[in-house]
C-alpha cells in the first residue's frame, strides 16, 4: 500500500481549495495600481497589403494614451520557431519573420496591426474602431494543395513556393521502402484529413506588462505553460530585454493544451507599451480573438499506404502529408508535423520499412502548432485507420491483425525504422486487458439488440504509442532544436524543517502542487502537508522548460528526485558530524538519519535546523544550509502505450453517432496519483472524441474564419460524452528515469479519434453499408448520412 500522501496514493488536490472558493489568481484577476488597458486592432481580411494606417482621429478619443502600429516594431526582432528542419534536398527550411504587429502585409483574419492603450478597456476598444486603415485585399491562400500548385500568390512575398520544407524521414530508407512496396502482395491505401482544431483552454489568454522606471526592471504576467521559455524568446529574439531585467510570471493558468506554450506578439506589445507609458498595461483576450489568434492544431492532409502479405504481416508503411502551418511559423510549428509525427510512424508494430514525407505549407490562416498530442495523434490516426482498412480488405480480424504485428517484450530495447529507441512496453498486455474490460463475448448480442431498435452498433479499436517526456537535448539538438529540453528543481529545506520545492514545470490543471509534493514526501519522509510546490515565476524558480508533451513528471519529476538525493547526501554529512560517525555509516530511512547498527539517529527536522544553526560546523568540509538544485536531461523519450476501444450506435437514417462506451487500457509506467492520471485520460479522450465527432475549424475560400465562437465551433458538452472506463494496471516502468514514469497527459487525445472512426465504419459494415471505406472527421450526422447515401 502506498504511504498516505506518498507515491501511489490518490491524494486529493490541495489546489482545489482555492479554485472551489473563487480564490484562484488567474492573470485577468490581477489588477496593478495605475494600470492602463490595451486593445488590438486585427485584420478582417485574410490577406492584404497595408498601404496606410490613419490613427489621428483615434488618438484624439477620450482616454487614449498611445497608439502603436507595426511600424513601431519594425526594428525589433521576430518571434522565432524553435526548430530548424531541413528539406530532403538538404536546404534549410524557410523562416519568415513573425513580427510583434503586422507591417507591410496582414496574413490572416485576426492578424494584429495596431494597438491602442487607454485609461479603460472600453476607451481602447472605441479608439480601435476609429482607426482607419487602407488595406488592399489580396486573394486568400486557404487550401494547401492550391497553395503548392500555384504559388503566384504568396503568403510571404519572398517565399516563392509557399512551402516551409519538404521533409523526408528517413530519406536514406526511401529506396528500400519503395522496393518493399513494389514486391508486396497487398497494398492498402487511404487518403484522409486530420481536421483542424482550436485548443480552447477555458481561460482566454491575458498579459500584463509592468515596467519599473526606477529599476529598469520589466515584469510580465501572462498565461503561459512555460514562463522561462517565454522570457528567453522575448529577451533573446524579440525585444532584447536582458533576461535578468525581465521576470515572467504565469500565475494560475486555466488550461493550455499546447496553445499557451508559445510566445505571442501581445506579450511583447504590452511590455513595450508599459515602458513607453511608465504604467502597467493590461490586455485580456476575448473568446472571439482567441479563435483567430491562439495557435490551432492538426490540419494534415495525408495519403498513407500499408504493404502486407496476404496473412497480414506488415511489410512497409509509407505516407505523404501536407501540413498546414498557417500564416507564420509558431514556436513548435516545424517540429510538430515532423519529429513529433514522422518518428512515431512505426507505432507499436514491427513494420520493417517506414518512410514519411511531410511538406509544410503556408496559408492565410491562424498559425498551426502543437495541440494536445502534437503530431502523435496525427500519426496514430493515420496508422490505426489504414490498419483497419487493411483488415477489412484482407478479411482479417482487426484485433488479431494488430496483435500479430506488435513488437514482443523480448524485442526491447527496439530501434524503430524511424529513429526512436523504445525502451520497454507490453502491447499484447494492454490489448488483452482491453479485451477483458469490454465484454467482447457479449458484443454480437449487443449488435442484435441495437438492430432490433433500428440502430447499427459497431466497435472500433486503436492501439497507440507515443514518445513523450520531451526531450533528450542531445537527440533533439541533432534534429534541429534550438533549445535544450531538460528541466530543473530546487529543494529548499527551511530551518524549521518544512520544504519549498521550486520547479521548472508549470501546472495549469495537471495537479503538480499535489503530485510533486507526494514525490518529495516519499523521498524525504516529510509529510506532504509540510511541502510547498512553487512554480510559474522566473524570479523564484530555476530555469526550466515548462509543461507540455507529457513531460512534467518524467523530466521535472526526475530533476526533483535528483535534487532530493542531493539533500539526502548533504543530510548524511550533517548527521555524520552531529553523531560523530563516519558519513559512510549513516543511513537515511523513514525520514531519519541513523548510524547503521546503532540506535543513534537524528530526525530530518533536527538535521534541517542544524544546517541553519551551524554551530561547531567543520566549515572547510561542510557548508551551512540545506538547499539543492538539480537539472535533469533525459537520455531518451518515454513511450507510454495503450489499447482503446469504442462502441457506437449509428442511426443510419439521420447519420447520428452515439458513443455507447469508451474503454482505455493504458501503460503509463509507474503512477504517482491514480486519481489524477485517470482524470487526465478522461480529459484527453473527451478532446479526442471532440475531434472525431464534433470539432472543426473552418475557413471559407476568402479566408474568413467561419467557426469563430462557441456558436459555430462545436465544443463537447456534458451531454455529448459518455462515461469513460480506464485502467492503467499493465505498467512497464520506464527504464531510464528514476520514477519509472512515462507520462499520461496526451494519451487520451492520441488514442481515441481512430477508435471512434473505426467504430463507426464497423457499425456501417455490420449493417450492410459496405461501400463506405472512410469518412473524414468530424463524423457529424451530415457527413455520416452523406457517406451512407453517397
Amino acid at each position, binding site marked *: 500500500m502506498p504511504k498516505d500522501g506518498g507515491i501511489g496514493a490518490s491524494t486529493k488536490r490541495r489546489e482545489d481549495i482555492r479554485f*472551489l472558493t473563487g480564490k484562484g489568481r488567474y492573470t485577468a*484577476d490581477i489588477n496593478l495600481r495605475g494600470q492602463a488597458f490595451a486593445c488590438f486592432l486585427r485584420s478582417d481580411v485574410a490577406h492584404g497589403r497595408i498601404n496606410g494606417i490613419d490613427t489621428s482621429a483615434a488618438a484624439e478619443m477620450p482616454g487614449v494614451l498611445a497608439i502603436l502600429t507595426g511600424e513601431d516594431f519594425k526594428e525589433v526582432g521576430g518571434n522565432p520557431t524553435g526548430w530548424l528542419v531541413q528539406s530532403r534536398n538538404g536546404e534549410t527550411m524557410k523562416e519568415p519573420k513573425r513580427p510583434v504587429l503586422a507591417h507591410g502585409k496582414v496574413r490572416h483574419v485576426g492578424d494584429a496591426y495596431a494597438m491602442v492603450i487607454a485609461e479603460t478597456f472600453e476607451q481602447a476598444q472605441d479608439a480601435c474602431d476609429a482607426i482607419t486603415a487602407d488595406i488592399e485585399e489580396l486573394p486568400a491562400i486557404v487550401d494547401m494543395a492550391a497553395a503548392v500548385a500555384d504559388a503566384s500568390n504568396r503568403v510571404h512575398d519572398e517565399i516563392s513556393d509557399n512551402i516551409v520544407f519538404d521533409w523526408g524521414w528517413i530519406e536514406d530508407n526511401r529506396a528500400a521502402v519503395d522496393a518493399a512496396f513494389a514486391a508486396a502482395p497487398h497494398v492498402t491505401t487511404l487518403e484522409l484529413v486530420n481536421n483542424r482544431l482550436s485548443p480552447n*483552454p477555458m481561460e482566454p489568454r491575458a498579459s500584463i506588462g509592468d515596467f519599473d522606471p526606477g529599476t529598469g526592471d520589466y515584469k510580465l504576467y501572462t498565461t503561459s505553460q512555460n514562463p522561462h521559455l517565454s522570457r528567453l524568446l522575448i529577451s533573446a529574439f524579440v525585444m532584447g530585454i536582458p533576461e535578468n531585467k525581465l521576470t515572467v510570471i504565469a500565475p494560475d493558468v*486555466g488550461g493550455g493544451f499546447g496553445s499557451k506554450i508559445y510566445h505571442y506578439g501581445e506579450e511583447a506589445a504590452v511590455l513595450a507599451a508599459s515602458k513607453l507609458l511608465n504604467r502597467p498595461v493590461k490586455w485580456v483576450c476575448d*473568446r472571439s480573438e482567441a479563435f483567430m489568434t491562439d495557435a490551432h492544431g492538426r490540419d494534415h492532409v495525408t495519403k498513407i499506404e500499408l504493404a502486407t502479405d496476404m496473412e497480414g504481416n506488415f511489410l512497409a508503411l509509407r505516407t505523404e502529408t501536407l501540413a498546414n502551418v498557417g500564416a507564420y511559423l509558431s514556436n513548435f510549428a516545424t517540429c510538430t508535423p515532423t519529429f513529433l509525427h514522422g518518428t512515431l510512424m512505426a507505432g507499436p508494430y514491427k513494420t520493417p520499412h517506414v518512410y514519411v514525407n511531410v511538406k509544410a505549407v503556408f496559408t492565410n490562416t491562424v498559425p498551426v502548432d502543437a495541440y494536445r498530442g502534437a503530431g502523435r495523434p496525427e500519426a496514430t490516426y493515420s496508422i490505426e485507420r489504414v490498419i483497419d482498412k487493411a483488415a477489412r480488405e484482407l478479411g482479417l480480424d482487426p484485433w488479431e491483425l494488430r496483435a500479430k504485428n506488435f513488437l514482443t517484450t523480448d524485442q526491447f530495447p527496439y530501434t524503430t525504422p524511424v529513429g526512436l529507441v523504445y525502451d520497454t512496453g507490453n502491447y499484447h498486455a494492454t490489448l488483452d486487458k482491453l479485451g477483458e474490460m469490454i465484454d467482447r463475448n457479449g458484443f454480437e448480442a449487443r449488435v442484435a439488440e441495437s438492430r432490433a431498435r433500428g440502430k447499427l452498433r459497431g466497435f472500433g479499436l486503436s492501439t497507440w504509442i507515443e514518445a513523450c517526456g520531451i526531450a533528450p537535448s542531445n537527440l533533439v539538438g541533432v534534429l534541429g532544436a534550438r533549445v535544450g529540453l531538460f528541466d530543473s528543481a530546487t529543494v529548499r529545506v527551511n530551518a524549521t524543517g518544512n520544504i519549498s520545492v521550486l520547479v521548472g514545470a508549470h501546472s495549469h490543471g495537471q495537479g503538480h502542487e499535489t503530485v510533486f509534493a507526494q514525490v518529495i514526501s516519499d523521498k524525504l519522509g516529510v509529510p506532504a502537508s509540510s511541502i510547498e510546490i512553487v512554480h510559474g515565476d522566473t524570479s523564484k524558480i530555476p530555469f526550466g522548460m515548462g509543461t507540455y508533451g507529457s513531460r512534467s513528471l518524467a523530466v521535472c519529476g526526475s530533476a526533483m528526485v535528483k535534487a532530493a538525493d542531493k539533500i539526502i547526501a548533504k543530510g548524511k554529512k550533517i548527521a555524520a558530524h552531529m553523531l560523530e560517525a563516519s558519513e559512510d555509516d549513516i543511513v537515511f530511512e523513514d525520514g531519519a538519519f541513523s548510524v547503521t547498527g546503532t540506535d543513534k539517529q537524528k530526525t530530518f527536522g533536527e538535521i534541517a535546523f542544524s544546517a541553519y544553526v551551524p554551530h561547531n560546523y567543520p566549515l572547510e568540509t561542510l557548508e551551512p544550509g540545506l538547499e539543492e538544485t538539480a537539472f535533469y536531461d533525459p537520455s531518451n523519450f518515454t513511450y507510454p502505450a495503450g489499447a482503446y476501444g469504442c462502441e457506437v450506435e449509428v442511426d443510419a437514417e439521420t447519420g447520428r453517432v452515439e458513443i455507447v462506451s469508451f474503454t482505455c487500457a493504458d501503460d503509463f509506467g509507474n503512477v504517482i496519483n491514480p486519481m489524477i492520471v*485517470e482524470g487526465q485520460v478522461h480529459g484527453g479522450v473527451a478532446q479526442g472524441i471532440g475531434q472525431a465527432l464534433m470539432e472543426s475549424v473552418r475557413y471559407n475560400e476568402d479566408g474568413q474564419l467561419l467557426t469563430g465562437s462557441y456558436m459555430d465551433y462545436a465544443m463537447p458538452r456534458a*451531454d455529448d*460524452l459518455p*462515461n*469513460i472506463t480506464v485502467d492503467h494496471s499493465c505498467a512497464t516502468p520506464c527504464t531510464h528515469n528514476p520514477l519509472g514514469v512515462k507520462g499520461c497527459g496526451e494519451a487520451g487525445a492520441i488514442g481515441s479519434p481512430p477508435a471512434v472512426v473505426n467504430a463507426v465504419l464497423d457499425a456501417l459494415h455490420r449493417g450492410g453499408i459496405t461501400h463506405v471505406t472512410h469518412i473524414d472527421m468530424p463524423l457529424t450526422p451530415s457527413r455520416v448520412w452523406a457517406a451512407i447515401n453517397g
Partner: protein
Amino acid sequence: MKVTMTVNGKAMSAETEGRTLLSSFLRDGLGLTGTHVGCDTTQCGACVVHVDGKPVKSCTVLAQDVAGAEVRTIEGMANKDGSLSVIQQAFQDHHGLQCGFCTPGMVMSSAALLAENPTPTEAEVRAYLEGNICRCTGYHNIVKAVMAASGQGEQQLAAE
C-alpha cells in the same frame, strides 16, 4: 450610476455605466474575481452566478438591471466556518476540476440543479450542465461529483 445589490449576504455598491455587465460589476467593481469570463457569446457558463436564487450567466446581464437583487457567487458558497460546502467538497473528493477556470460556474450551476432536483439521474445532470463547458475533465468526474453531492452513491453511475 452607482448600483447596489446584496452580494453573498452583504450590501455592496459600485459605479457602473449603462453597458456594465454583471460579470464586470462583480469582478472589476467589487473585486470578486472568482466569477470568470470564458467566452463572449453566453455559451461557456464560467460566469454563472445566482440572482434571486436562479442561475444566470452574469456576462449577459446588465448590472443596472439587477440593482437591489440578491446575488450569490462562488465566494459565497463555502460553509460559514470557511469549510467547503457539500457540493464543493464533492468536486474535490471526485477530482471534478483540473485547471479550475470553469469550476466556479460548474459549482453554481450544479448547486442550482440540486436545488431544483435533489436526486437527478446521470442523464439529467449531463443535460442540465449543457450550458457549462469544461475542456479539462471530459465531465466524467464532474458528473460523479454532482451525483455524490446529491447523496446518491457511485452505483448510480452507469459505466462505473
